[in-house]
C-alpha cells in the first residue's frame, strides 16, 4: 500500500508540473518569477539603479544551466545515497532476523529495523 501511495504522489506531482505546459489556455512566456519581480521594480521605479553588482556572473546561459544542474545533481545524488543506505540496512537486518528464525532463536534477536 505504501509503494502505491508513493507512485500516486509522484504522478500527482508530475501532473502539476506538466499541466501548465499542455493545457490549452494556460501557458505563456514561462519567464522566471524572480525576473518578473525585477521588471515590476523597474516599472514602479524607472529611475532605480541597483547599487551593487554580482561579484561573478556565469558567462553564458549554458554555464548557468550547468551550475543549476550541478546543484540539483549533487543534492539528488546525496539523497539517493541515503535512500540506498537505508534500504541496504533494512535488508541486512531482515537477513539477520530470518537467519535467527532458522536457528530457532527469534526471541533473542533485537529487531531494530
Amino acid at each position: 500500500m505504501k509503494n502505491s501511495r508513493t507512485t500516486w504522489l509522484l504522478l500527482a506531482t508530475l501532473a502539476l508540473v506538466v499541466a501548465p505546459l499542455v493545457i490549452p489556455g494556460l501557458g505563456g512566456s514561462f519567464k522566471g518569477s524572480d525576473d518578473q519581480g525585477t521588471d515590476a521594480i523597474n516599472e514602479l521605479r524607472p529611475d532605480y539603479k541597483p547599487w551593487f553588482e554580482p561579484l561573478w556572473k556565469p558567462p553564458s546561459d549554458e554555464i548557468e544551466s550547468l551550475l543549476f544542474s550541478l546543484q540539483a545533481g549533487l543534492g539528488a545524488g546525496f539523497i539517493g545515497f541515503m535512500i540506498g543506505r537505508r534500504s541496504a540496512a533494512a535488508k541486512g537486518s531482515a537477513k539477520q532476523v530470518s537467519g535467527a528464525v532458522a536457528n530457532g532463536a527469534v526471541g533473542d534477536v533485537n529487531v531494530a529495523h
Partner: protein
Amino acid sequence: MHIMEGFLPVSHAVGWFVASAPFVVAGGLSLRKIIRERPEARLNLAACGAFAFVLSALKMPSVTGSCSHPTGVGLGAVIFGPAVMAVLGTIVLLFQALLLAHGGLTTLGANVFSMAVVGPWVSYGIWKGLRSSGASIAVAVFAAAAVGDLATYVTTAVQLSLAYPDAESGIVGSFIKFAGIYAVTQVPLAIAEGLLTVVVMNALSGRAGQPDEIAVLAGEAR
C-alpha cells in the same frame, strides 16, 4: 523568491540582515547541539540540506505562465526544527548568490529571512498544529511543506512592497502587484513541493505510516 543583487535600498538591505542574523546564530547553536547529542543524525541533516539544494535549483512552470522554484526547507523544519534550516537555507542562498548570480549578497539578509526563517517557522507551526489536532504524519508534512513554501513567496512580496510602494495605491497596491507575480505563481508549485516532501520523507525513513517516522529521521529513536 530571490531578490536580485542591489535591488533593495541600503536601509532595507541592512534591516533584513539585522532581522535574519539572530535566527542564523540560533540555528548554528541548535545545529551544534543536535550534532553533539545525536551524531547519527548528521547524515539525515545533510539529506535535509540536500533536499533544499535540489528543490531550489528546479525552476518549474506554473499555471500563471511563468516559472518559479520550490524551496525544500519544510522537510528539515519538521524533522529537526525550524532553527537549523536558517543555517542550511543560508548556505543554499550563498551558493546561488556567488556562483549563479541568482539573488545576491546585499539582498542575502532579505532572502534568508523569507526562505530560511519565515518558510521553516511557518512549516513548523503548521506541522505542530496539525499533529496536535490529530492529522496523520503524511497530511501534516504535506501541509507544512506546501504552506511554508507559499509563506516564503508571500514574504518576498511583502519585502518588495515595503521597499517599492506604489505611487498611488501605496504599499497595499504594490503588495497586490508583487503577490500576483510571486505568490499566485507559487500555489501549484507549493502543492507539488508538499507531495514530493512526503515521498522523500517516506523514502528516507523507510517507515511510512509508522508513528515514530519523524523521531527515527531526527535520530531520536532507532
